[in-house]
């Protein structure tokens, strides 16, 4: 189960995230699983692999917005890096970034 302690230990800036949720712990925690749903992450990965960098950028940008609002910093970091690379449509090896992204996402998702 995801708790505030789990999030803190994970490295999330829970004070910031909680503040945006009017310090309602239950509400804040209820939003976390949605931010961890695989769909968004897969869309980034699949689009990059298919060479569809525009679509990949849109997906990464959207996910970045959600993660930043919830202050899930460890996942936000690689997603932000991917977003910036995609913004410039950089042709590079995204694998390491994607791996970090998945690693961090899975780490937290394990608590669901």
């Amino acid at each position, binding site marked *: 189960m995801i708790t505030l302690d789990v999030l803190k230990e994970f490295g999330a800036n829970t004070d*910031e995230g909680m*503040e*945006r*949720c*009017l310090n*309602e712990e239950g*509400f804040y925690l209820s*939003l976390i699983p*949605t*931010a961890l749903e695989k769909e968004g992450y897969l869309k980034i990965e699949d689009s990059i692999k298919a060479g569809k960098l525009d679509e990949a950028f*849109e997906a990464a*940008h*959207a996910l*970045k*917005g*959600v993660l*930043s*609002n*919830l*202050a899930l910093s460890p996942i936000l970091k690689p997603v932000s890096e991917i977003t910036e690379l995609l913004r410039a449509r950089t042709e590079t090896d995204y694998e390491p970034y994607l791996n970090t992204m998945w690693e961090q996402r899975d780490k937290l998702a394990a608590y669901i």
Partner: protein
Amino acid sequence: MNEFADERLNIKRKVLVVDDEIVNRQMLGKILGEDYEVHYASNGTEALEKLRDESGLISLMLLDLMMPEKDGYAVMEEMKADKELASIPVIVLTSERAAEVQSLQKGAVDFIPKPYDMPEVIKARVKRSIELSEKTNVINATQSDALTGLFNREYFYEYVGLLDHYNPDIKMNALAVNINRFHLINDMRGRKFGNDLLIAMADAIRSLVREEHGIGSRIDSDSFFLYLPVHKTPEEILTVLANGTEAYLDNPRSRIRLGVYESADRALEPERRFDRALMACNSIRKNYSTQIAYYDEVMHKDEAFSERLINDIGKALEEKQFCVFYQAKFAIQEEKDVMSSAEALIRWKHPDLGMIRPDQFIPLFEENGLVQKLDRFVWRESAAQIKAWKDKFGIVIPVLVNVSRIDLLETDFIDEISGIVRSNGLNNEDLLLEVTESAYTENSEQIVEIVNRLRGLGFKVEMDDFGSGYSSLNMLSSLPIDALKLDMGFIRNIHNNDKDMKMVELMMDIADFLSVPVIAEGVEEEEQYRLLKDAGVDLIQGYYFSKPVPAEEFEYMIRERVDSLKEREK
């Protein structure tokens, strides 16, 4: 801090949150849910649908920019083009600094960065944006004329002041625009057509003021004011207005008139400057061959003279500078022409300006509502004079006094006039009452009822200016009157068998049908007298017999005829 209407009215406004990410939507919903009824859309198309479904009830939209299919920019573009949606304020949600500028340019009122600010900041921004938008809407609604969208009078003068303030060195013209006989266009083509014409005129004015960096206003009905830098000539301005209205006016250049107060003096209040433009415009009201009139020295002198009179009115009433002159009326269908009665005519003996004619000051009295005081003064003076002559000569010379529409509608009118007659020991038929034909046209039923009551009490009521064109034949047959007085305009130029003479004969037939005597005034020449006598006119008034004279002079006329007058009274 201004009062926010929902606190007073207990209204929970609706806001629409548009974001393709459910987490973001829920988070904003949480922040705003306490103060607002929050609606959601997950993409641009859905957002526009919701805005339209709620038809004007969404107070604000929070809009994510980057969304699949229709993005935030496209939504704002569509809103801008839709009259219903254009005034809904939009706050853009974005993590992109560059997008902030672009979205403000597209019409967003504010932006909220992602990740979101502290909830209090978001709440404050939303509240302030709604307040500003509502105030703007209220101002837009109150400052504009609903039909044309031009400024109304009050706001126009405000903006004239602002324009002067920021451009103190630019010379400006004050212009007044009017459409000749606009009421006839409304009557003949219908109100819708008339309104379309006014809208076309307003559009032409709008294009002019945009191009010239001025402002325009619809003052009332078909009256427009323009405040423009001295650049285009009045002729060029008239051409623009004529071109803009040619779909509605047969000969637009000749139907529009323009009053120009050039390089308007800024020391004057804006109202005064446009009074001058309007004065110029009205000076060509009946002159269809002239379309442009300028406020000039002559008008300036007239204006200064009127202003002097307005200032002196109060004192003149106090100091009794007014006096009554009398003009004799003669019965001409008897063996010998005999003086039968008189008409009371007011004069103002101004201590500095000398004798002032009523046509110079009566309109001013009518404007400031003092004309009734003046009327009552004349009634009292005239009744006292009838009594004085009665006491002196033993005969009654009835005197005709003017009674306006406003007088008739006063609740105490009948008491007042009866009281005046009674207090002088006269009969009601001794003080003749004159009502103009035009008085019968408005509130005619009420006027007819009052006149009937007066006649029931024994007063004689004459209709003045008959033939000046207001009565319908149908109305005439039901009018309670004791005599018809022909409009002076017909008498002035009558000659044997000419058109005016034919008109007189026609009116004689109407009088005959109504079985009332006819009076002609303004008779100056022998030929007029002869023609009118032959036509059967009963009574005549005019310089041919006597000009209006003071009571003392009138007394000589009575003295000379006292025997015949007594004989006639028997």
